[in-house]
């Protein structure tokens, strides 16, 4: 591909000089995906090239070398979540992990526990997995959330029963960033003997997630949401007491029979490297990103009125700001800001022009949902970028509001 040569020198993809065809811009969409950390890329590269063996080749040194690297990565990830390596099943990403956890647990226990519970604000792949189970004859409850986006624990407790196989509730919401009360959810599940599956894709590396302390039985992880590579993720599967699943992908019997297929060694190495960086830097990084978020919010609210925050104000992840701009259409706002990468909903659904189902589940009026923008600040954003984003956003909102009122007259 023609453009590759000039990209090669900049593995971080962030500090771009705008040369060649790459338009400079500000990337505030770190909940859709994050740039791969240059340290992660560096760790991965040898396993694409000279250390390329198939980790399942048991008969020679190329294979053993790759296997050792995979196991190191698995261990680094396990350490970040307080698990053992034997509890980490490597997958192609969080979508696969969520499908495996929910369908796998429900199908394994379909005879005695035909019931599945989740929330209306979960990621599409959780909701679609639940609906697929419903078509197979499972009973599925998709619970509403409170106006602040948090689970209603009383409603959950009233819904989970001895017939519930699995309750799937995410740690951090991908659109509004709210953090669910995981330990309380776990207690409700375990009281009835149900598994607690937690989609940790948006939370890992951003808040501490200790599966033992939180009582999580299954947890989905995505590499590319915390500065690791795309195409790799994991499912934590508790061993004591043992969580039983039906596999989705069968074949060579890799990953303890729960997930067949050749493990991509470089991606496993990248996932591990990303986990190690997150473990070392999470506290400092969260403080820095939190300050940037405050700077963004204060900058915008100083310049504009009619701005509201969607989701709980305190119980949310540091980098997320989901803001409603009164009298503005989010799609028009994004078109007016071509150099600012933000989103109006989750990435996978953002080609659709429906208002976000997550915001609708909060009970927001359609106009407010349609006027909401998600900014997600990440590791590679600077203060200067935040200041530019404030100016760009405030200017664009003011212009659109003027045009709107002129059109109304």
């Amino acid at each position, binding site marked *: *591909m023609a*453009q*590759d*040569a000039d*990209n*090669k020198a*900049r*593995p971080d*993809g962030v500090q771009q000089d705008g040369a060649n065809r790459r338009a400079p811009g500000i*990337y505030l*969409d770190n909940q*859709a*995906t994050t*740039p791969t950390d240059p340290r992660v890329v560096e760790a991965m590269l040898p396993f*694409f090239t000279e250390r*390329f063996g*198939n980790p*399942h*080749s048991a*008969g*020679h*040194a*190329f*294979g053993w070398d790759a296997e050792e690297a995979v196991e190191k990565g698995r261990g680094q990830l396990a350490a970040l979540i307080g698990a053992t390596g034997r509890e980490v099943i490597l*997958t*192609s990403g*969080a*979508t*696969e992990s969520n*499908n495996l956890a929910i369908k796998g647990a429900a199908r394994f226990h379909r005879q005695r526990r035909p019931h599945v519970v989740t929330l209306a604000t979960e990621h599409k*792949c959780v909701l*679609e*997995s639940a*609906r*697929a189970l419903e078509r197979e004859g499972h009973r599925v409850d998709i619970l509403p959330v409170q106006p602040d986006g948090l689970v209603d624990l009383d409603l959950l407790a009233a819904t989970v029963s001895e017939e519930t196989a699995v309750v799937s509730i995410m740690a951090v919401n991908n659109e509004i960033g709210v953090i669910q009360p995981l330990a309380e959810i776990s207690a409700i599940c375990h009281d009835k003997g149900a598994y607690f599956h937690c989609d940790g894709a948006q939370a890992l590396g951003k808040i501490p997630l200790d599966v033992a302390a939180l009582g999580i039985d299954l947890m989905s992880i995505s590499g*590319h949401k915390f500065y690791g*590579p*795309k*195409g790799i993720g994991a499912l934590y599967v508790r061993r004591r007491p043992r969580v039983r699943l039906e596999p*989705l*992908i*069968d*074949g*060579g*019997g*890799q990953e303890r029979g729960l997930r*067949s*297929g*050749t*493990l*991509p*060694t*470089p*991606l496993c190495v990248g996932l591990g490297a990303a986990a190690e960086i997150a473990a070392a830097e999470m506290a400092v990084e969260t403080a820095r990103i939190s300050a940037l978020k405050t700077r963004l919010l204060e900058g915008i609210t100083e310049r504009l009125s009619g701005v509201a925050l969607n989701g709980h104000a305190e119980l949310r992840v540091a980098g997320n700001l989901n803001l409603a701009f009164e009298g503005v259409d989010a799609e028009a706002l*994004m078109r007016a800001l071509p150099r600012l*990468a933000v*989103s109006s909903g989750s990435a*996978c*659904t*953002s080609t659709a022009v429906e208002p976000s189902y997550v915001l609708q589940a909060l009970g927001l009026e359609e106009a407010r949902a349609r006027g909401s923008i998600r900014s997600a600040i990440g590791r590679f954003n600077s203060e200067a970028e935040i200041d530019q984003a404030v100016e760009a956003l405030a200017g664009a909102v003011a212009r659109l509001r003027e045009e709107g009122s002129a059109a109304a007259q």
Partner: protein
Amino acid sequence: MSVYLDYNATAPIRPEALAAMTGALAEPGNASSVHGPGRRARRLIEAARAQVAALAGADPAWVTFTSGGTEANNLALGGLPARRILVSAGEHDSVLQAVPQAGRIGLTPDGTVDLDALAAALKDTPDNTLVSVMLANNETGVIQPVEAAVALAQAAGAWVHCDAVQAAGKVPLDMASLGVDLLTLSAHKLGGPPGAGALLARPDLPLNPLLQGGGQERRRRAGTENLAGIAGFGAAAETALEDLPRLQKLDELRDHFEREIKILAPDVRVFGASVPRLPNTACVALAGLPAETQLMALDLAGVAVSSGAACSSGKVQPSHVLTAMGASPDEAGAAIRVSLGWASVPEDIDCLLAAWGDLYRRSRAA
């Protein structure tokens, strides 16, 4: 370690694929996002889709990217509303284990699927039958009579899936002329990165997704696309297509190896020698000389080959492929697979023959 002769397990990455990946790794976007970084990611994926389609003689719209060949095989076999499934007994585990209930069609002693048995099984088969026959076997390299299987299947109104993971990039591949409905490819077997593969399927097939969620890949496979992996896959596919004439000549090196090893030990059996095979694969056995012994000795000499398929290497059981060809447990347990690839050189075979000759002489002396 220096001599790598296990390309059917995985191939070292081609420089073109690495360059494409390095470029894609620098892209911050998610291909489903509508902003600039998202659109750049989308363009890379669509370019790769065209490259992968070209390798298989298919339309880009037929390509669904997956995490690899195993997922693609599971999607093909689990995604169609098939009332009956027939698979060849020599298929990869990712086919056999995906549909354990499937009817198995045996192999002939030369390693090809038994077409008479397939014809008999297709007699009075219900509507929505699915037949899965690989294009070339991963252990023996034997090229399967897919066109003949397709003719039988079409006469019975059945769909045909073809696992082309091992054949792609080693022999010409044209999905249209093969006449199959679904075809599986893997990136890392042809010099692309591990973690990327594809299922090629006609858009009108009623294929249900295995992974559900954000609706990516025309609703056939949800999940954020593995951008760098897909870009590397595309570049590897394009390079493999250009490099095909050279790789087709690997049979000169392979035949040289088989001639020489038979001079060293005339009792060596070469599996599938009487039928068309991939140019890169040799599967040989000398009864009484266990594969594990050979692998250990060759590894000490710095030569990497394998016994059977890599993913089942952990289990010590005789190859289901060789067993289906009528090999005794002793013979199957003695089989090693030598597989060449894009970076192989004649010296690799010289090293293998020297190391194997030493081992053979020691075993005779003992």
